[in-house]
């Protein structure tokens, strides 16, 4: 007697690695032996790609935010775009505080669930990389933080910290800040180059917008520098000049010829939120 057809939900959970270990192993064996199941998995892959193409994360997040602004049951017009503006901007109505603060991680989480291009877990893979969902959950509780998406298959995927990224990848950096703060976002690559992302020109730290995840004005293409790219969000309760800070990052690299895990010597009140992307090849691991 042939086994009963595999329910779609179980296949979805299998793809996401969300079945208990024994069930995962059983299904993996069944998929290896059953071309129809493999075809269904491939169809789901194609469906993911089509959804990503039709509904890029940025527009999905905008729609969701807009719906939350305008009230349940009202999807914003595709022609008119955002009715309420992004959180933190003047003139927008205040939302319930609990829901307001839940949004950033929720959006990342939503993106992760909705749009994740996640591969089946490889039993031999020992790399320590958070899943997009796990990272989104952690982000939810943070005062501030970064989230980085990679352009992929016409859409985008969330790269959790320590994920592998490669030369030429187009990255979109998002930040969130719970409370009013000034901040800077820069990255240090494996060659010691320091790139300023926010603000895009030097001077003084930017007044961060509070609330939901916000994209930086421009995407960023990863260059050939080896090993890793570590992004830093540095926040402080007051404006601060950037030159000294960036110079400190360069100096920290120069000491050990390694990208620093954290920026030393920050003054009281400063906070830092590093976010590392590994690059393939020797030394691409993280410490």
């Amino acid at each position, binding site marked *: 007697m042939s086994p*009963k*057809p595999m*329910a*779609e*939900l*179980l296949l*979805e*959970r299998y793809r*996401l690695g*969300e079945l208990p270990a024994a069930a995962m192993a059983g299904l993996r064996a069944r998929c290896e032996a059953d071309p129809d199941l493999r075809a269904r998995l491939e169809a*789901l892959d194609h*469906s993911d790609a089509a*959804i990503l193409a039709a*509904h890029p994360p940025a527009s999905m997040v905008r*729609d*969701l935010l807009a*719906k*939350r602004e305008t009230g*349940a*049951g009202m*999807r914003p017009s595709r022609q008119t775009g955002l009715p309420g503006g992004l959180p933190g901007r003047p003139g927008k109505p205040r939302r*319930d505080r*609990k*829901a307001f*603060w*839940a*949004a950033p991680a*929720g*959006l990342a*989480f*939503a993106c*992760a*669930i*909705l749009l994740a291009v996640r591969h089946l877990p490889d039993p031999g893979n020992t790399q320590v990389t958070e899943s997009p*969902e796990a990272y*989104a*959950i952690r982000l*939810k509780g943070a005062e501030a933080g970064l989230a980085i998406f990679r352009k992929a298959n016409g859409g985008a995927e969330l790269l959790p910290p320590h994920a592998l990224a490669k030369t030429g990848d187009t990255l979109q950096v998002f930040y969130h800040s719970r409370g009013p703060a000034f901040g800077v976002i820069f990255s240090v690559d494996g060659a010691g180059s320091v790139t300023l992302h926010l603000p895009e020109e030097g001077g003084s730290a930017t007044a961060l917008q509070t609330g939901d995840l916000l994209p930086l004005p421009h995407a960023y293409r990863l260059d050939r520098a080896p090993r890793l790219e570590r992004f830093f969000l540095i926040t402080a309760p007051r404006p601060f000049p950037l030159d000294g800070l960036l110079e400190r990052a360069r100096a920290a690299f120069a000491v050990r010829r390694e990208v620093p895990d954290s920026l030393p010597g920050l003054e009281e009140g400063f906070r830092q939120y590093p976010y590392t992307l590994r690059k393939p090849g020797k030394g691409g691991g993280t410490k």
Partner: protein
Amino acid sequence: MVLRRCRQLLRDEDAALDVLHDVFSRWLELAREAPEYPSSFFYTMATRICIDRIRSADFRSRSDDSRLVEIASAEDIEGESRARRLLDRIFGHQQASTRVMAVLHYIDGLSYEEVAAEVNLTAAGVRRRLQRLREHAAKWNGEDKS
């Protein structure tokens, strides 16, 4: 995955996107801790909201493709208000998760054990709930015929 689920049940792209937003919006409103298996949580929540949508006469009048809607449409042959009353009586008197269980079991083909894993009950509990649902349906069917 969630959008696929909504499409599967609703067969209407706009409605599916609308429910997709509802799913995540409700999760944000709950501001709850992430579940152990997020996909399962969102899948069942999407199912529940889709069922609510399907129950609306407006939606049933526009759609005719999913098995859920076919069931509703079959009742509509005898009169929409009666069909709606029947569905309301079947579903309205049950805990919300029973409707989801019914869809997972009867529509999606999950076993009692598999449904139980999704809704955090025992297989016996799922069997009892669905049995009660069937009994209610039979009873109300009988009442409607009388």
